[in-house]
């Protein structure tokens, strides 16, 4: 089984346990929505194509039985969502989102909407990814996305810092259990918060760079607020995409500033970047960040942005540098911006 599937299964089982649910007792109208990225293709599998006269597809076909049936070479990118369905015995809708680094956030947002529309009573949502394999990392490095700096050691991921130089790749998973309110109340579940809205928007700019003013990001935040019926002034905190890349962080700062320009509300927001601690989980990134946002709203604690030692002048918000902060929150946003300008935002409300 690919690593990302193993991560996702582990996270889903943890989430179910935390929700006080056992698979056999899940409601009939349960579904799964996951975001996961490019399948991991082991070069060793491709070496099966190599014969004495060089590589030949015919050799690979003749030796197909030797291929790992669970590897990315034979499998599709819905491996995680379908593995979850098999392990948990869930026969409801099963969706896999492919929106680059916004995949898990799309899965969470659409999972919420499937409950809201009455298609499901419970959704297992989130994402898992692992790009820490050579072929994928080569592809990312050729695009100049990850940091190659040798300064800073384990403080390399420095969102909004003057010396940031690219993202730091990571792997992992995050899974949330979304449940219709009445269903959760009936079984006495601990409700952390409400996933109240979702918005998405496209930059329509360049394939390899975000819109410099964060146009698509702003539109996604505005749509999430509208979907959640929130006024911008209701929001106290943003869990930023905050990749530590030279282009994302100022563009996201501008997008937040314009979305929350009324009354200079952006000056009162706490903005944090979990990637400073977790690294970039790529397609899965939005899931642990949404969990952190939910916990911030539930517990009134905003996690810090680490390694922000010399703020970039073009990044002028309150990024909660260094250490966590107590802050009572009525609502917060979780931002995820996918490569090519595919942006998605979750709005979280405190549950009274």
């Amino acid at each position: 089984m690919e690593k990302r599937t193993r991560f996702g299964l582990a996270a889903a089982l943890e989430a179910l346990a935390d929700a006080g649910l056992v698979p056999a007792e899940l409601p009939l109208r349960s579904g799964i929505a996951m975001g996961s990225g490019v399948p991991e293709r082991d070069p060793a599998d491709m070496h099966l194509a190599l014969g004495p006269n060089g590589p030949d597809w015919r050799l690979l076909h003749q030796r197909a039985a030797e291929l790992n049936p669970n590897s990315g070479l034979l499998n599709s990118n819905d491996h995680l969502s379908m593995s979850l369905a098999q392990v948990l015995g869930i026969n409801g809708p099963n969706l896999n989102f492919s929106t680059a680094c916004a995949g898990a956030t799309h899965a969470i947002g659409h999972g919420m909407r499937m409950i809201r529309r009455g298609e499901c009573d419970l959704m297992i949502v989130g994402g898992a990814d692992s790009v820490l394999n050579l072929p994928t990392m080569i592809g990312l490095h050729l695009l100049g996305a990850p940091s190659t700096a040798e300064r800073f050691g384990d403080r390399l991921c420095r969102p909004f810092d003057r010396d940031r130089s690219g993202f730091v790749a990571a792997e992992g998973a995050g899974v949330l259990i979304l449940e219709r309110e009445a269903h959760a109340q009936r079984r006495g579940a601990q409700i952390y918060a409400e996933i109240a809205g979702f918005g998405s928007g496209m930059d329509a700019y360049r394939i390899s760079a975000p819109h410099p003013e964060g146009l698509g990001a702003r539109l996604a935040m505005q749509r999430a607020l509208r979907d959640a019926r929130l006024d911008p002034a209701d929001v106290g905190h943003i869990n930023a995409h905050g990749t530590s890349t030279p282009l994302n962080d100022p563009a996201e700062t501008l997008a937040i500033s314009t979305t929350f320009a009324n009354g200079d509300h952006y000056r009162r927001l706490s903005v944090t970047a979990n990637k400073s601690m977790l690294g970039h989980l790529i397609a899965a990134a939005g899931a642990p960040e949404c969990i952190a946002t939910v916990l911030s709203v539930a517990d009134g604690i905003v996690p810090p942005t680490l390694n922000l030692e010399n703020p970039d002048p073009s990044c002028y918000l309150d990024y909660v540098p260094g250490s966590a902060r107590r802050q009572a929150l009525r609502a917060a946003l979780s931002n995820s911006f996918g490569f090519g300008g595919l942006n998605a935002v979750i709005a979280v409300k405190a549950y009274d």
Partner: protein
Amino acid sequence: MSGFRTVKLHLPQLHCAMGDDWENVWAALGSPAVPGPAPWPDELAAASAHVAREPELAPYGVDRKLVRTMEKQARMALVGAGRLLEAWRPDHLADRPETGLFMGLPTIDEPLPSLAVLESWHAAGGRDDWNTTLMRETQPFSGLSLLNSSACAHIAATFGLNGPMAAYSPFADAGLSAVIDGVHAVAEAECSHAVIGAVSTKLDPLLPLQHAHWEGRAGGLRVPGEASAFLLASADAGRNDPVLLGYARGCHPLRDDHGDMLVDLIAQTLEMGRCTPTDVGWVLSNQPWQAAHKESLHRALFAFAPLHLPIEARFGYVGPAAATLAVGLVLEGMRRQRRWLTHGARWEALPMDASCALLVMYSPMGQIAVALIGRDRS
């Protein structure tokens, strides 16, 4: 939940081996499509394929250098979306801020590592470290072309789409989810129009291996095809344009018997669409993968058997694009008041005398999506 029935589906577009306009493709459906040679050695299974011609992107002002960073899937998607937007408002091609994009995408555009890397490594006698060879030989833009959602980014950037978006992957049910959620995006006023499309899986020599793996038997017997198919969901199209009347989604893990799941999903869909089985005049599906899928489809469609059209018989296996191709066929059929039905291997165009069509899309892993499309009578 019923608001989505006001959203019109219109302007279907396609790019496939049979052609790139519905007039010609509709007329050609009466004759069996003859697949051409697949782009891999003859000795491999399924050595034929329905190969689409290379899309022309120059009319959309796409830079040639940028085109070289795209896989054919992204190029086919771009031309499909471009043709749709031209048909919609030809004088206003590159700035549509409130237009959304909902797409069904295959898993990946590019096999990694490619055979070319292996060739270089072998040519050097395996002297170089494999990792070094891989780093040296990987194409500069492989990071873009292996990312399936690049197709969405190219469409948004080329045509100025700033609306909401989502991309679903990797099989035909994902294509139908793009239709369902695109319609909802318009109904819920996220956008006034949604471009909805899907594109087929890359034709590469891995595909027959994957087909054999997914089908659970030796040999990739289904003929793969290339296609992209698009349509527009609008709040303000013609009064008589068809709409999504109902839908249902589910999944049953691969190894098990599907039981009556498809029967239940069809019943839910009809109930949501306020229709009875007698209202259904056409049933379109992709080809099921597993024996259990085939049995469940046979059981579920028993009452509709004469109305069933397996679309892959003409278009080949086209992955997520099967769903949007099927919607395109329904929209074209309703416009012409005709439907294609089969008599053995023969296809025949007959009058369409019912108000709606049912779509059933299977994935090899067990996901199923069902949709009902027709004219809203309420």
